[in-house]
């Protein structure tokens, strides 16, 4: 996890809020550093994490996790991390007929189905064990990323339904957190993606939006991060708080600074 980002979000692994949906969004840049941040954050907070990783392999997250101070292999071995590796599972599903329902079963179907098997998988992974002792603090669901589900033939409504079911189970019933990543296609006129993004923006408590700089590529400032706090359940008496920072990604951390205050410029 990035300590500077924790300071900006005013949170630490010990006293993070529960029952929240965080939306990560990237436009014209790569926002995957935020996924790595939240993965290591919740593992350090001793939460039970279910990670639906659709876009990269396990070793990718594992190697970056090591740089951030968590070991995904060990977390998986001791049961703290349930990892669904989308790429490997897709190969299994497409080339071999599965006997039991598989979370990515929709890949075999001709028309757009629903994500019920995936939801069942998540529910099974995060359900509290009735052994009496509470090993983990609260469950967390991480999805990287939802836009891939649209590319695989799912409709935006099916994905929104899946998130709704997950929210009801993870956030409300189990008092856990959810973090999902969606790409913002910008001017690519991807209607399904826009429906998904807008729908999720209205439901989430915290939106982190990583954008590329409007002026183009820069070696010292990799992008801009907009943080937006929302209270979707309560009527908004005060305006939603929003902050903007610029960031530079380094080998093991990300440094944040106010707009125009990059160390390279000062």
């Amino acid at each position, binding site marked *: 996890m990035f300590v500077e980002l924790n300071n900006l979000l005013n949170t630490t692994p010990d006293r993070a809020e529960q029952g929240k949906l965080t939306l990560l969004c990237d436009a014209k840049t790569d926002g995957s550093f935020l996924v790595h941040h939240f993965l290591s954050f919740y593992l350090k907070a001793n939460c039970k994490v279910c990670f639906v990783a659709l876009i990269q392999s396990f*070793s990718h997250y594992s*190697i970056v996790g090591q740089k951030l101070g968590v070991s995904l292999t060990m977390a998986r071995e001791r049961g703290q991390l349930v990892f669904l590796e989308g790429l490997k599972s897709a*190969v299994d599903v497409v080339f071999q007929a599965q006997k039991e329902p598989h979370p990515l079963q929709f890949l075999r179907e001709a028309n757009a189905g629903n994500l019920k098997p995936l939801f069942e998988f998540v529910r099974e992974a995060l359900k509290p064990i009735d052994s009496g002792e509470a090993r983990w603090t609260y469950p967390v669901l991480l999805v990287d990323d939802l836009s891939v589900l649209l590319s695989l033939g799912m409709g935006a409504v099916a994905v929104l339904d899946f998130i709704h079911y997950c929210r009801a189970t993870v956030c409300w019933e189990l008092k856990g957190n959810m973090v999902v990543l969606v790409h913002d296609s910008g001017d*690519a006129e991807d209607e399904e993606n826009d429906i998904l993004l807008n729908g999720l923006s209205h439901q989430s408590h915290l939106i982190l939006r990583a954008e590329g700089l409007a002026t183009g590529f820069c070696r010292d400032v990799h992008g801009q991060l907009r943080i937006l706090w929302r209270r979707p359940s309560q009527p908004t008496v005060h305006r939603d708080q929003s902050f903007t920072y610029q960031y530079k990604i380094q080998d*093991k951390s990300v440094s944040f600074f106010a707009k125009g205050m990059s160390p390279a410029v000062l």
Partner: protein
Amino acid sequence: MAAAATCGSVAASTGSAVATASKNNVTSFQRRGRRASGTNDSGPRLVSITGTRPSVRNGQLLVSTGLPALDQLLGGGLAVGTVLLIEEDKYNIYSPLLFKYFLAEGIVNGHTLLVASAKEDPANILQELPAPLLDDKCKKEFDEDVYNHKTPESNIKMKIAWRYQLLPKMEQIGPVSSSRFGHYYDASKRMPQELIEASNWHGFFLPEKISSTLKVEPCSLTPGYTKLLQFIQNIIYEEGFDGSNPQKKQRNILRIGIQNLGSPLWGDDICCAENGGNSHSLTKFLYVLRGLLRTSLSACIITMPTHLIQNKAIIARVTTLSDIVVGLESFIGSERETNPLYKDYHGLIHIRQIPRLNNLICDESDVKDLAFKLKRKLFTIEMCWPPHYSWIHPANYLLRALILLFPLPRTMQIKITTIMSYPSNWCIF
């Protein structure tokens, strides 16, 4: 990525000049040969595959794309397990060249090839591969060729940069391995027949395969894509590139080349209609292909006619599902053909995306305005003025003169272009 992960740990244990992630207070530099555990047993064998080298940044195993100039821009080469997507130029003249360079590099290094096309028989594609320039004699010959070619006009151009006229054009960054990484090819000559026959290659020609009775699994992909995926998966399993076949111990790279993916010849209609019935076929194919590649020792090049795809959303999705995306824009038929700024070049090359693999950052080149030109023996990529520049302010020459008149040591030479680059729409006056 299994291959990269073991390679990452291998790089740490062999003490090479690659700094990988260090655990708490344990340095990742270890003496060669100290670790003898089972997982690192395959280490030396992985590193010793011909035609590969570990990346300087994170120990990732890289293969050459066949163009040393492009390798430099991509941070050393194409990572094993990833897809290089080439967005074809409008008349499909230069993208087949990059495709052929990739395959020719595979033959020269002894890699296994898998060539898939819906238009041309793979055997014909292999016959048309360019001949490699293999010995040092040829390299000296090509250096002279470039030098002689450059001298008449370069006397005018290199007036300010005259000290750099004497230095060779190509600078290799990164560790120089003993066996050559990245070869040069002569586009006017054909690859010798004996090299092609000695290589191990598999061809997938769609018109032949579509009529045969391969078992087709139910899937919503177009039949052409389904057959191609099954073919690739078959080769990977049969020849042991994913390590799952107990009989086959493969220590070689599989180079997959797919030509004109997405064109109507593959049975896909994304180039014909805006909201066709098969709009998810291509993206599903790319996703499953990515899954196959990440779990095997293979690298893939795909050329795609993105300028024909009607729905821009599909292009955005395809870009997300590919690792490296390079766009070619040739000047033929456009108004830039007569633009004096571009008289030496054949087109622009856009590096649209570079992956961040096993890392938070990637090796992005600072130079965003690149042009290519094809000479007989060389496909060069150079920095050029951004397209929207219509005139060159004299201050630019002055700036260049100030920096270039004071010669920097050779190791800094490659940085000249990066010092002079700036965000693409920043104009200096």
